[in-house]
């Protein structure tokens, strides 16, 4: 077993001429809870997508559990995209969405070999009553829960969430952190979560990665989110936004 579940070395991502990530170097220990914090456009989603193999690095290396993102088994990785980017018009029941987490395919029938495991996963997040509801009729928080069930159903070693707190209320948010933490403890998994909210990061995370295209800091929350670092991350982008505005 590797001590570090995620190892990133000198990672750069360039889109056309835009440098989205510049020289990222992090080693994330197993069974830790990591918050990724930074302003809009800081490259947070790009960072997660490069760990998922959805975005290729322009240079540098990423190892997940010692392997490249393309080689790692999908069963070891759980990804919860931003709920607002999901297609709610797709005619689907919550339980079908959960089954995709086990099957890696859309289920044709509900009487599926994985159906029991899917119900069990919904139970673990307190959402079995949502199983036969259409996803178009779920609230943001409910859909988030169903996605969480979809993810933990496969018992991944690494769970990545993109702004999971967006679009759900405060109670839903607290519930979600509790469920994530209980999954982390029961399965020794590592959680990587993007958030705007550095208070939440301080509360729940063991480590914080503060990003603004460059890596501002990585470490325990109190260090990583020092006032200087926050100013560096959030002050700078305000400045460049103003500049962009003037140019336009």
């Amino acid at each position, binding site marked *: 077993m590797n001590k570090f579940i995620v190892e990133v070395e000198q990672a750069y991502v360039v889109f056309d001429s835009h440098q989205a990530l510049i020289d990222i170097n992090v080693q994330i220990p197993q069974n830790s809870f990591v918050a990724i914090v930074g302003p809009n456009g800081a490259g947070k989603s790009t960072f997660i997508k490069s760990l998922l193999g959805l975005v290729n690095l322009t240079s540098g290396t990423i190892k997940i559990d010692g392997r490249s993102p393309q080689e790692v088994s999908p069963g070891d*990785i759980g*990804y919860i*995209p931003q709920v607002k980017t999901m*297609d709610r*018009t797709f005619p689907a029941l919550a339980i079908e969405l959960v089954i*995709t987490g086990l099957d*890696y395919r*859309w289920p*044709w029938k509900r009487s599926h070999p994985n159906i029991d495991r899917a119900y069990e996963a919904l139970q673990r997040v307190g959402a079995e009553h949502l199983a036969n509801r259409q996803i178009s009729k779920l609230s943001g928080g409910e859909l988030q829960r169903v996605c969480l069930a979809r993810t933990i159903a496969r018992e991944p070693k690494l769970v990545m969430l993109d702004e999971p707190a967006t679009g759900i209320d405060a109670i839903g948010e607290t519930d979600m952190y509790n469920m994530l933490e209980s999954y982390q403890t029961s399965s020794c998994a590592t959680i990587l979560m993007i958030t705007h909210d550095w208070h939440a990061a301080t509360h729940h995370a063991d480590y914080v990665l503060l990003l603004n295209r460059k890596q501002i800091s990585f470490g325990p929350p109190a260090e990583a989110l020092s006032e200087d670092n926050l100013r560096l991350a959030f002050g700078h982008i305000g400045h460049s936004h103003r500049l962009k505005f003037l140019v336009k």
Partner: protein
Amino acid sequence: MQRALIAGVLVGFLASYYGVFVVQRGLSFLGSGLAHAAFGGVALGLLLNSEPLWIAVPFTTIIAIAIFWVKKRTNLGSDTAIGIFFSISMALGIIFLFLKTDYSSDAFTYLFGSIIAVTRTDIWSTVVITLITIIFIPLWKRWAYVSFDRELAETDHLPVDRDDYLLAILIAITIVVAIKVVGIVLIAAFLVIPAATARLVSSTFRQMTILSVIIGIFSALIGLIASYYLDVPSGATIILFQAILFFLGMLLKSLRFIIG
């Protein structure tokens, strides 16, 4: 008439089956784009005095691949990519037809569809593509997953690009074989309306698929029979019948909404 009914039922099945992916991925414009690409292929076939089908199938398939390729390699949206190839092939088609002096009657057959013009070759090619579609039915699970969320499917290591190209090619061929029955002008509707109607009243993607196929086959049959007895063009009759079903579906949905 018998030949027309066979062609109608098979084409009704194909269009309404692939239509669910077209509608759910927001690719309605793809149907019209590829139909116009097919026009370029048909016109070239007419110009060369060969069976238009043999030219239109590869022509339209290449355009379909090109559309997906451009979309993937650039940051243009699919509507832009479709628009570009749509106009190129339409322009080519117009020039081909212009070069062929005795075009009028044939071209109309393709533009508006003519069930009497359905040949043995048309039937056989429709049968072949139907068989291929049935063989590929297990792919429904992957196409459906990608239609729901491309990123999730990609993180689960599905071959999403390869699946997309295959889907595009099969849709392109479906469009070409549907031309005689519905006509180039109305093919996009034929792809979209059954699936859109099914979506109105379905709570799962499986239900939507089954219902769409039933609507596709049923409306092709009724439309063909009606057009035969009323002596009006078959494609237009089928589409109007489908449109009636669509509005009935809307009505049903809003009634359900009002009642409870």
